[in-house]
């Protein structure tokens, strides 16, 4: 056992990636099969989303494949082929303004997302996104939406829209559905490996019909974890999550702070800006569903999201820049 610990340290010193022993268990065979299934899954025509009360049937294959993907390019035992470890640049040296906000209302068109009691996730996310846009626009931010109506947008199209708009940050808005109905709360994700199987399933569900191939993913993920965007995304996620929880706890006293988490959502991988995915409520919870029917509660969510973006922007020194540039700057 100690020999393995020493071997791992020696590998680090020499710049090689330690050779990790992995059990070839039933789960691993399942994982390998899942990767193969992913290829089929990604090339098949995009079908309509599921219509049950829960999310569309999770594409666990996607999550499994993506969990494997970061190892591609850093794996293997040949030290000579290892790229140098990238050194992360301290983002604070840039002091760049945050002016253009891309809002991504989850789902849409043929993909309703989670549904219950007459509520559909795609409608809630669009309504909240429009409210956030109004709040931010009034504060001199430039806002771009990845969809402006009940339109079907693949995740790749959303990513392309965000990148084409050259947004400074992206906030993807979703509504959660948790198997345990009594649970409710808000959680905010930034890009990283999923920390548990529930998040893997959630990422799988949200990633279904992404429009990306496995090869695209490998390319996208290489180096992403080490870049400035990763750390900035974490800060944005903390700002958004903090505002969401503190703003909603009055109207929703039983709300849980489900925290800032990491997961490999497609929309977070492909975008070229700090990006987060916020699950702003739980459609699987009856009380949350009742609250989501109220305009005032949706407005509170929207203002909290806007406040999170505003707080992040202020920390990045954007407020001064905005004031200097004036409204409508782009």
């Amino acid at each position: 056992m100690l020999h393995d610990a020493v071997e791992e340290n020696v590998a680090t010193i020499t710049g090689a990636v330690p050779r990790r022993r992995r059990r070839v268990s039933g789960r691993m065979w399942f994982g390998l099969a899942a990767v193969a299934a992913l290829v089929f899954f990604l090339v098949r025509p995009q079908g309509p989303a599921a219509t049950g009360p829960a999310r569309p049937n999770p594409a666990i294959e996607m999550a499994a494949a993506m969990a494997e993907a970061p190892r591609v390019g850093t794996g293997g035992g040949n030290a000579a082929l290892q790229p140098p470890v990238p050194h992360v640049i301290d983002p604070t040296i840039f002091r760049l303004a945050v002016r253009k906000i891309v809002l991504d209302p989850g789902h849409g068109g043929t993909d309703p997302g989670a549904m219950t009691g007459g509520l559909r996730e795609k409608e809630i996310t669009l309504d909240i996104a429009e409210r956030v846009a109004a709040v931010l626009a009034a504060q001199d931010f430039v806002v771009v939406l990845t969809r402006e109506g009940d339109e079907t947008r693949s995740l790749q199209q959303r990513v392309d829209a965000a990148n084409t708009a050259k947004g400074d940050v992206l906030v993807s808005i979703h509504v959660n559905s948790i198997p345990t109905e009594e649970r409710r709360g808000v959680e905010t994700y930034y890009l990283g490996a999923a920390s548990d199987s529930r998040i893997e399933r959630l990422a799988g569900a949200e990633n279904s019909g992404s429009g990306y191939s496995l090869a695209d993913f490998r390319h996208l993920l290489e180096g992403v974890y080490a870049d400035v965007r990763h750390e900035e995304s974490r800060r944005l996620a903390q700002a958004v999550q903090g505002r969401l929880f503190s703003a909603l706890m009055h109207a929703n006293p039983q709300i849980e702070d489900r925290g800032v988490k990491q997961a490999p959502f497609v929309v977070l991988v492909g975008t070229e800006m700090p990006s987060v995915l916020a699950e702003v409520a739980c459609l699987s919870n009856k009380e949350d569903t009742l609250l989501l029917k109220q305009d005032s509660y949706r407005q509170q969510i929207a203002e909290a999201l806007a406040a999170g973006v505003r707080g992040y922007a202020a920390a990045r020194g954007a407020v001064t820049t905005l004031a200097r540039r004036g409204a409508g700057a782009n």
Partner: protein
Amino acid sequence: MTKEKSSVLHLGIDLGTSRSSVSASNGQHHVVESYVGWPVDMVARKLIKKSVLFGHDALEARPMLDLHRPLERGLIKEGSQKDEQAVRELLQHLISLANPEGNQKVCAVIGVPAEAMRVSRQHLRNAVKGVADSLMIVSEPFAVAYGMDALLHTMIIDIGAGTTDFCVMNGRYPTDEDQRTLTNAGDSVDEQLVTLLRAKLPDAQFSIHMVRAWKEKFSFVGEPKGKVDVTVPVNGKPTVVDIAPEIQRACESLLPPIVETMLDLISRVEPEYQESVRHNIILAGGGSQIPNFAAALETALGEIGGGRVKAVDDPLFAGSNGSLAIAADAPESDWEKLPG
């Protein structure tokens, strides 16, 4: 050439987000809060009379210091040379506290949050380069398991400040699939407590250090046993406030994600060993001392057949003692492969 045993000082170091400890083969044990501070200017230097302060001393003198807590959420704050320097200073301070003799070779095992091992292994190695003659870095939960000889069919849940690390021990060196990390930990409880208190007392003035101290003194989960009165300035006037409901809610925010992850990891253990693991769950780190926390986890285990959760007796030194045990057991030939 094999060196005489007395010519080598073995050290076990627990490099934590909140506190760091050292256990040495010469019997020395020390713990310091993981703060490093440099005087901000000539005036501060004149007052402090030291080039760098550590732990509680640094915290006390923080207005005069460029204060760093170099680990955040289980990772070295990469990109900041100052934080890497703070890690080195902190380790050198811990080593000096162990009081090595001038001619002794220092062989150190440093336990770090599991996330740091996975995500920033190379940065970590660079940051600690040169602080000892030989260095080995291991994940903190593995060090705890090794020190307690809990290497087979056990689960370590190490609730630290920055992260909660899980590790299932299967009688071999843990792989990535045996380990999990959550950022729900002591710092997230602090942040939530701040949020709850600001909502309850919008005019009160308190710092994160005050909130952290209240949490460490009064934390609990389950039914409160009474009021938790603290004195806090409200519009400048010292005011006694009962914060028991907020403490309870903030501490209990740790339970859902930890229970979910614990149950998920158990479900991934080979079926014939799941019962053994359920009955051998060890709670380590500062969070292990939250009253009723182990009992709450046992209640959750009741849903899958029951189990036993035991908190370590000495959370301050469980990690560094485990690292020291690894240092003592590692053969000289292995140490020779590991430059400092």
